[in-house]
């Protein structure tokens, strides 16, 4: 069983997102390790991009801060490496946009795109890759490398996906990232849980094995519990980034407490998979 599937085995998962390099690389390492200690089941490390078109203002600004502070793709790999040195078990995913993945050359001449990035992911034990600007139809060019290096390329499903859900679910790897609502990332006050539940039913009809985690807009334990009740887990980004931004380098304890609370909330949700 892959580490990603492990994250969802027999329990509801809580998945925090942390932008690499905000406020600096060493802090990110501490925050990720704190989230793992607090019970996070999988952690998304965001590699900042200059133009994150799927993000709301909170993550946009975190990306800008991280890039201004000198974070790079190579730097994000170093963050992952430092996390892995302390914690070999926690499932890790990178979330970023396609261009940094496409352009990363590592020590190669850059003539073969994607392979340097994926081989580095494999070396560091990155289990999954989430790329919001890479829809199902364009995955073909990167799939040979995600498969070769054993990294799950996570597909997204959104409220507008309709008949696309079946096609996406059929070949999904790792887990499906269910986008809770229209628009970009960022805290929302309410959700249409029934619509989310319908998306997940459709996915499960097609592919009963694939876990479904819901993200975009979740911030409170109540929301996380409700999301986990209709799915296999909840993903939280902007709320954590906001917490980190307000505490700066000293956010470790705040991250630990927040993640502990959110993990307890998803555990309260009924209807575990097995």
């Amino acid at each position, binding site marked *: 069983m892959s580490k990603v599937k492990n994250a969802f085995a027999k329990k509801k998962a809580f998945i925090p997102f942390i932008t690499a390099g905000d406020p600096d690389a060493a802090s990110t390492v501490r925050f990720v390790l704190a989230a793992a200690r607090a019970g996070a089941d999988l952690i998304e490390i965001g590699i900042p991009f200059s*133009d994150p*078109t799927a993000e709301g203002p909170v993550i*946009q600004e975190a990306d800008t801060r991280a890039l201004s502070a000198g974070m790079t793709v190579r730097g994000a790999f170093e963050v992952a490496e430092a996390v892995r040195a302390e914690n070999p078990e926690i499932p890790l995913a990178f979330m970023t946009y396609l261009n940094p993945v*496409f352009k*990363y050359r590592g020590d190669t001449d850059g003539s073969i795109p994607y392979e340097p990035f994926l081989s580095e992911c494999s070396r560091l034990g990155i289990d999954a890759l989430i790329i919001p600007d890479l*829809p199902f139809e*364009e995955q073909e060019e990167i799939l040979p490398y995600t498969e070769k290096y054993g990294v799950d390329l996570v597909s997204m*499903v*959104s409220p507008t996906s309709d008949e696309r859900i079946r096609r996406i679910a059929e070949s999904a790897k790792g887990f499906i990232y269910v986008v809770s609502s229209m628009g*970009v990332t960022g805290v929302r006050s309410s959700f249409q849980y029934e619509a989310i539940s319908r998306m997940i039913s459709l996915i499960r009809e097609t592919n009963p094995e694939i876990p479904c985690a819901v993200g975009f807009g979740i911030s409170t334990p109540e929301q996380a519990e409700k999301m986990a009740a209709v799915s296999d887990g909840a993903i939280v980004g902007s709320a954590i980034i906001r917490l980190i931004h307000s505490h700066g380098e000293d956010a470790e304890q705040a991250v630990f407490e927040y993640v502990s609370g959110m993990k307890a909330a998803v555990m309260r949700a009924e209807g575990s998979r097995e």
Partner: protein
Amino acid sequence: MNKKGRFGIYGGQYITETLMNTLGELETAYEEAMKDPVFSGELARLLAEYANRPSLLYYAEKMTKDLGGAKVYLKREDLNHTGAHKINNVLGQALLAKRMGKTRLIAETGAGQHGVATATAAALLGLDCDVYMGRLDTERQALNVYRMELLGARVHPVDSGTGTLKDAVNEAMREWSSRCSDTHYCLGSVMGPHPFPTIVRDFQAVISKEAREQILRLEGKLPRAVLACVGGGSNAIGMFYHFIPDSEVMLIGCEAAGYGVDTDRTAATMATGSLGIFHGMKSIFCQNEEGQIAPVYSISAGLDYPGIGPEHAWLGSTGRASYVPVTDEEAVSAFEYLARTEGIICAIESAHALAHALKIVPKMDREDSVIICLSGRGDKDVAAIARYRGREIHE
């Protein structure tokens, strides 16, 4: 072009899942509309009666004599309603949006020309309109902001990133992914995810369709070269399209080099960029080695975009078209030259194409001709050019 809107390796649909069905619906609606004589008839009527098409192909006799080479023709897109080629695309997309039952248009704008054109079409066709514009651009082009508001549009200054055109595109995409059921994103150039590069190209192709007929009527033969400025590349693809099969006609795209291609104050994508994937398309972009999109600069707010449409990347890679950089200084000098020589104040964008023509026309045969696309008029640029020349004039 093969499936999924590819031009060779360029193009594609690199966009969030939330917009994929919307793009599919747009593609289907577009294909149906293009087969429907009612749609094409209505568009033709608006182009003729509202936008002032066909645009003139003007023989610039004084300029020709002065340069002493090939005969110079100017394709006068500056004489269109709203003062630029942008209206060609916007009328097409606004009609399409209405046909799809959409009630609201959103658009990005750099200098404000596309925003004004979109606000105009929205007013005419009774659609709601929101325009996204970089904060810096709203300050540089305050008059165009007011113009859009006069036309009933809401203008949203964009603070993220560099506060310029690419950030306005980002924000329009974000808005579209929040609200697509009643909203059409009226993209202003031959960029973005499929089907936009094809739709915008087709609506702009009227430029070369007319120009090819006009030059054959006037000269009895094809021109030696056609020139157009390139940011995203909509007037250029429009100017090139019907000449692409005519292999004897050189197609020359003129990019904004800003302070020069050897400086970091440039927007010359083909000269300084590399292959990448951004704003929904695989194409050439100004970026750093890690794929972060680079800030770009040009005196022309309409050309300072860090990418180029995928069909241009393809025409460049096959050698069918060539792309040359033109600096701010060259463009401003050409802007002044045309004003003095022909009594035409053209857009600073168009002046980039004109500047390259000034270099090559004198070396060309007098029996030959060239066509330069004057993509827009220059009223909007007058104050900025004055400041560039050291006269502190503000709008």
